[in-house]
Structure formats: structure tokens, C-alpha cells
């Protein structure tokens, strides 16, 4: 009897809380997407079925996790299934080709990454950003200069001075040869007035193995994004000398930009949603509108805070212009660094 009264007492507030939460939650979820959906419905006949979102990189990686988050949110907004499909291989060529070759009605979209503006310069494919319809850029992570915590250089200028005095002695890594962080190395060297090969590039499978090499003493410098190196930086085993962005990062307010240190150069790995060239205008408009809402939602902010990825929004027109600009920049650096065939 005593037990049951106690149980009832315990249950009552729980039930009340549930009812309140249910009403609040129901009201919230009922109105919010509808408002977003109604405001964005530029193409009333879209979507007619499930949408396929192609990811040119492997499951479990950074691009994959961003794509899966955006895909989930987009599914709610469009009220249809969004199937995230990984098409890997060929340094991203296979997946990007699959996006470009997809149906133009908006049923095939994908997560385009910075590699799209590099692969054709490298001679891997004829595919360029022109074969895509830009829909919206969702994320960007700038390159950095990360060295071992006990390295003798207090800032970027000291490091560059060391490189200038001892060309070829400094070894850097972060990606494979011709990868985005290799370009960060070459581009920053050129911008600092150094020959592009004055820092030697040791190819690695990505930022994590490069960081391990850095800590183990196999290399002196990682040009990968600070996000990718954050665990070791926070653990005090590596230190960041600079970030290759226009402004300091909110997560690393003490790390100055390269520009502040006298080298006017930025480089970042970006990701955005794109479809095959020639998508109908209203569909692009609708998708872009949904992406705008997703990117500026508190859920996305929470996701970024958890993963450390950086927010960078560009709408369809802005993303298209940005890709063209990026393509030209990458071509210049790759030619100068001898990374083109």
C-alpha cells in the first residue's frame, strides 16, 4: 500500500511533465517545419520520390557525417526519404562523376567538396565545377600551421624564417600529394615569397596519421585544419601557429591568422550540396531555401559545436561563384607547385 502510494506520487509529476512536453513538442514540431516548408516550396511538384544524396568519400569520415546530418534534416523539410549513398574512390572522382551524371530533376544531389576544383588540374578527370549546379555551401574548415608543442618556433614568421634559411629541411604532411593540405603548404610558401618546394611534402592518408607522425617526430609541420588537429592541440602535444582564414576561428581565438602575420593567403576545405548541371531553377531555389534554414538551425549549431566543423553558408548563386573563384586559385597554385601534368 505504502509502495503503491509512493509509486503513484512518483508517477504523477512524470505524467504531467510528459503531457506538457508532448504539447510543447507537438506544437513546436508541427509549426516549425511547416513554416519552413511553406516558405520554401518554390517547386510544388518536387520531390516526387526519394532523393539520393551521393557522398564521394567513405562512410565514417568528416564529409560523410556532415552529409548524413544535412540529409536527415533535408528529409524532414522535404517530407521524403533522403538516401545518403557513399561512392568512394579515385580521390573523389568517382563520387563527383556520379553526381554530375545523375538525373537533373533534383532526385540526385550530392556533397561536393573542394577536391572538385583540384582533380581536373591534376589531370585525373575532365570533370569540372561547370558540370554541376551549385545549391548551397554548408561548411568550410581553413588550413592551419600546426607544429609539435616543443618546436622552437613561436609564430608563423619564425617557422617561415627557418624554412627560408634551410630549404627542404622542413617536412610537412596532412593529405596525399596534391591533396588540399598539400596545396595549403605550396600556396602559403608561394605567398610568403618562398619557392613552392622549400617545405617537403610527405604524403599521408589524412590528417590523423599525419598528426601521429608529427607527434612521433617523423615530420615537423601539419597543414591540416585545426579542427582535425584539435585533440592533440588541446592535449598540449601540438601547437597551432596560424590559421589560413580571413578571421580567427571562434574555437581557437588565440591562434592568429596567417594574414595577421604578414602572409596574405587563405585556404580551406569546403563542402556544399550540388546537383548535376541543368537542374530546374525552382528545384534549386527550394533546396537552397531549405539548406539555408538547416544551416542556421540550432541543431546544426549543436552538430558543429560537437564535431568542431566550421559554419560557412553560401546560397546557390554565391556557391557557384565561389567554386569558379576557387577553381582559378587552385589552378594557379598547382601549376606553380608543379602538381599539374
Amino acid at each position: 500500500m505504502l509502495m503503491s502510494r509512493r509509486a503513484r506520487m512518483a508517477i504523477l509529476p512524470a505524467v504531467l511533465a510528459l503531457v506538457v512536453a508532448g504539447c510543447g513538442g507537438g506544437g513546436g514540431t508541427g509549426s516549425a517545419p511547416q513554416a519552413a516548408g511553406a516558405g520554401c516550396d518554390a517547386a510544388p511538384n518536387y520531390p516526387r520520390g526519394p532523393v539520393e544524396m551521393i557522398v564521394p568519400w567513405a562512410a565514417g569520415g568528416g564529409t560523410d557525417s556532415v552529409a548524413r546530418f544535412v540529409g536527415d534534416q533535408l528529409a524532414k523539410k522535404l517530407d521524403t526519404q533522403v538516401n545518403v549513398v557513399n561512392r568512394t574512390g579515385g580521390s573523389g572522382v568517382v563520387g563527383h562523376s556520379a553526381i554530375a551524371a545523375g538525373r537533373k530533376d533534383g532526385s540526385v544531389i550530392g556533397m561536393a567538396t573542394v577536391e572538385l576544383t583540384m582533380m581536373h588540374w591534376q589531370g585525373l578527370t575532365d570533370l569540372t565545377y561547370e558540370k554541376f549546379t551549385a545549391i548551397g555551401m554548408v561548411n568550410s574548415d581553413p588550413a592551419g600551421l600546426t607544429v609539435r608543442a616543443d618546436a622552437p618556433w613561436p609564430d608563423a614568421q619564425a617557422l617561415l624564417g627557418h624554412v627560408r634559411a634551410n630549404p627542404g629541411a622542413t617536412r610537412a604532411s596532412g593529405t596525399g600529394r596534391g591533396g588540399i593540405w598539400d596545396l595549403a603548404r605550396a600556396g602559403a610558401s608561394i605567398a610568403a615569397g618562398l619557392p613552392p618546394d622549400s617545405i617537403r611534402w610527405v604524403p599521408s592518408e589524412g590528417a590523423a596519421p599525419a598528426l601521429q607522425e608529427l607527434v612521433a617526430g617523423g615530420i615537423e609541420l601539419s597543414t591540416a585544419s585545426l579542427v582535425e588537429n584539435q585533440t592533440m592541440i588541446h592535449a598540449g602535444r601540438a601547437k597551432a601557429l596560424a590559421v589560413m582564414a580571413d578571421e580567427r576561428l571562434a574555437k581557437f581565438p588565440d591562434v592568429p591568422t596567417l594574414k595577421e602575420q604578414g602572409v596574405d593567403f587563405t585556404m580551406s576545405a569546403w563542402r556544399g550540396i550540388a546537383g548535376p548541371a541543368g537542374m530546374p531553377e525552382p528545384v534549386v531555389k527550394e533546396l537552397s531555401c531549405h539548406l539555408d534554414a538547416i544551416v542556421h538551425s540550432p541543431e546544426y549549431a549543436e552538430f558543429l559545436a560537437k564535431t568542431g566543423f566550421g559554419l560557412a553558408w553560401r546560397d546557390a548563386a554565391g556557391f557557384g561563384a565561389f567554386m569558379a573563384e576557387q577553381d582559378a586559385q587552385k589552378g594557379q597554385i598547382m601549376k606553380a607547385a608543379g602538381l599539374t601534368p
Partner: protein
Amino acid sequence: MAQDLAAALASLADPTLLLVVLACGVYGLFIGAIPGLTATLATALLVPFAYFLDPLPAVASIITMSAMAIFAGDLPSALVRMPGTPASAAYTEDAYRQTQAGHGALVLGVGLVGSAIGGIVGAVVLIVAAPALAEFALTFTSYEYFWVAVLGLTASVIISQGSQVKGAIALLLGLLFSTVGIDVALGYSRFTFGSELLLAGISFIPAMIGLFGLSEVLRNVLHPTGRLRVARIRTAGMFRDTFRTLWRYRKGVVSGNLIGGAIGVLPGAGGDIAAWVSYAATKNASREGHLFGKGEGHVEPVVSAGSANNSALASAYVPTLVFGIPGDTITAILLGVLLVKGVQPGPELFSTQAPLLYGIYLIFIVANLLMLPLGYLAIRGSGQLLRVPPGVLMPIIIAFCVVGAFAINNGWFEIVVMLAFGLLGYLLERYGFPLAPVVLGLVLGPIVEKNFMQSVIKTDWDLLQFLTRPVSAILMIVTVLVLVYPMLRSVWPRRRRGTGAGAGVERAVGPDGRDEA
């Protein structure tokens, strides 16, 4: 640690996981019992299902299935003189002759209990050795990884079955295929002939599905085996005799498990090789060695080699999980499945994914205990198992091959790769080339190249570093030892001859050719 163990135990209570384990156990017994259908093939056919599962159930499905399949390979060995999987080939002759002499239940009982013991010992090797090795491997750099991969390549040829020249050719073929696509170090495209599809290279899972799955179908269609005459066995009193026999040959149990555990840890060498080596060792050591493979056959090699293959199966997970370098062909597929699921094997796995690892350990124990009742039922029903008509089986295998190849990257090109490697696998086997080295070449080629290039670029071509770093030097010495192993072996006293004529059924190449060569 206790916390991780508790988490793993909790995850074990998941009904999906238990269902997966049970279903895959039955599936493994079925595939293993059918001559020609290997545990590798069974794993390859599991791929499309593994994709829908979480990492732990996916690994569990492969562990359970392969353990059962390796045991079930003993069934047709004893009943129709055809090894169900290559891992049983070493003692097929003895198992069959014993069955003919009326000891069928005993042979299979010994095979079953010995397999379960072997599996658990192998799991203990994994549980003890892997974390210690992982701790050690954290200090590995590209030099050490280079040598571990070279060791795997060497072992796959030197300890493989059949002619070493053919093994080496098969390995080189695999290495050649592994160079297709974008070069791992410098980013140039190779052998792509301007095709964007080839830029991605030849993905090894579709290649393996073709090599082991489709090629078997081709062989079956082109060379049908006809009706099998299945020997009858009575299982009354089986377990009593089994335990008595195992106790009598307990030295064989110990040596088989030790050999199996050690060979499994070696990258590139798996259960079939462990069984051959254990067979040879038992024969050399036994006073009754001259009776092996003749007359009524002998149960002792079934005891030792039968545990060795299961023990190696489990300990092959050591290099796979610690270095990301597969211990055998089954773990090569497992590696691919893990990568697709975003789980990157390597020493970091032991700190970041401890619950998953404890789950894997527990699954090994569960699977091998489950083998006892399921295996007993399989022995009882073995007559029916062996009578499944190929006309039903082969189309199903083809369907699974196609689906599995497609599932890896959602593209048709992988299906083409699977078909091409199916044809290649058929031709290679037809002319006596082993298939495992092709796979190891394909998997290890990029690892060797990448680590070599990284090392030399780091040091500006200072090759001495490969020899002067202590761990690197030790690994090099082990590699050289494996390389000269055949010469060492010919120095050993050889009191044996005619190592089982029926053993060459599974592969066109038996042990005989190699021993004489």
C-alpha cells in the same frame, strides 16, 4: 576495463545480435559442409548482409559463420573424402579412412570438440596478445608497417599450398592489380587507360567475391561432381569416445593449438596453412606417424590439425585488428567491411573502441560454445546436408555475388570486377595457382607501397633506416626466417611419405607436389 566489459556484455544481450549469431552459425555449417564452398566464399556472400548491420553484429556474423564453416569442412572429409574447406584438406584422407573403418562418429566428434577448443584457444591468444601488441604498435612508424606488410606477402607465398613459384606468380598478379588507380603516394593515375572508373582502382572485396564465389560456380558447372556416395555413421556414445580420444592425444591438442595460434598471428597465413603445418608436425612427432593417411587412417592428425585450423582462424584477428593487415582471406573481407562501416583497425582501435573489441572477444567464446550443439546437429544431419543439389545452390550463389559486389560502392563497375575476377579465379585454380596470394597482393600492395614511399620521402631516400631501427630490424629478421623456412624444413628428419592422395581434391595442387619440389 570492467566498464567496457559490462558494456560489451550488455550489447551481447541484443536480440538482433543473438539472432545474427545463430543464423550465421547454421549458414556456416551448411556452406562449410558442401565440398568446394569455402569459408572465404561464405564470408564473401555475407557481405551484402553485413552492410545492413552495426559493426559488432557484422563482425559477429563473420566470426560465427567462419568458425562453424571450418569445423563443417570436416564433415565431407570424413563422409565423402572431399574436404569441405581447404582447412580440412590436410587430414581428409585420415578422416575418411577412419570413417570407412567404422570410426566416423569418433572422427567427427573429435573434429567438433577439437574445433571448439581451438577456437577458444585462438580467442584467448587474441584477447591476450592483441592489446599488448597494440600498445607496442602505437610506436610503429612507416618503417615497421612496411616490414609487417612485407612479412605478410612473404608468408602468403612461402607457407602457401602447392608450388611456391605459382604462389609467387599469384602474388605478383595481385600486386599488379593493386597498382591500378591513383597511386597512393604521389597521386598519379596508373593503368587507368583514361577511364574514370579505373581511377578508383580494383576494390578487393568484389575481386574476392569473384575469385572465391563465382569461380566456384564456374568450376561446378564446367566440371560437375556427380552424385556423392555418403557414408553412414552412428552417433551413439560419440561424446564419451571423443573426450577419451582427446585426452589420449592431449599432446596433439596442445601442439595443434600452439601451431594454429602462432600461424594465425602471422599476417597472411590462415587456417588451411595452420592445418598443414600441424599435420606435418604431428606426423614427425608421433610414434604412430607411419600410420597416417594409410590403411584405416589415424585420428591423431584430426585431433591436432582439426584444432589448429580453428585456432588460427581466431588468432588471425590479431594482425587484422592491431595493424589493419589481414591474417587470412576471411579477415581480409572483414577488414573491408569494417572500413566501409567507418571503423579503422589499428592500434588506436584498442583505446577508442574498447567496447567493440570486448564484444568481439565475447562473440568468439559464444560462437565456439554454440558450435557444440549446432555442430552435433550438423553431424546428425550431415547426410542430408551433402545431398543439396548444385542446381539449387549455384544460382543462389551467383545472385549473392552480384548483390555483394554492388553493395560495396553502389556501382555497376564493381560487378564487372567481380565477373572478371571470377573468370580469373577459375583459370588460376584450373592451372594450379593458389588464390589467397592474389588477395593478399591486392590488399597488402598499397600498404607496402605507401609505407615505403612515406619512409623514403621522410628521410630523403636514406634506406638504412629500414635496417637500423630496432623493431624494424626484428621484423626484417622474422621475414627472412619465413623466407628460408622451406630450406630449414628440408633439413628436418623426414619419416613420412605419401601425404594423403585425396587431399588434393579441393585444390588442383596438393601437398605432395610441394613436398617433392
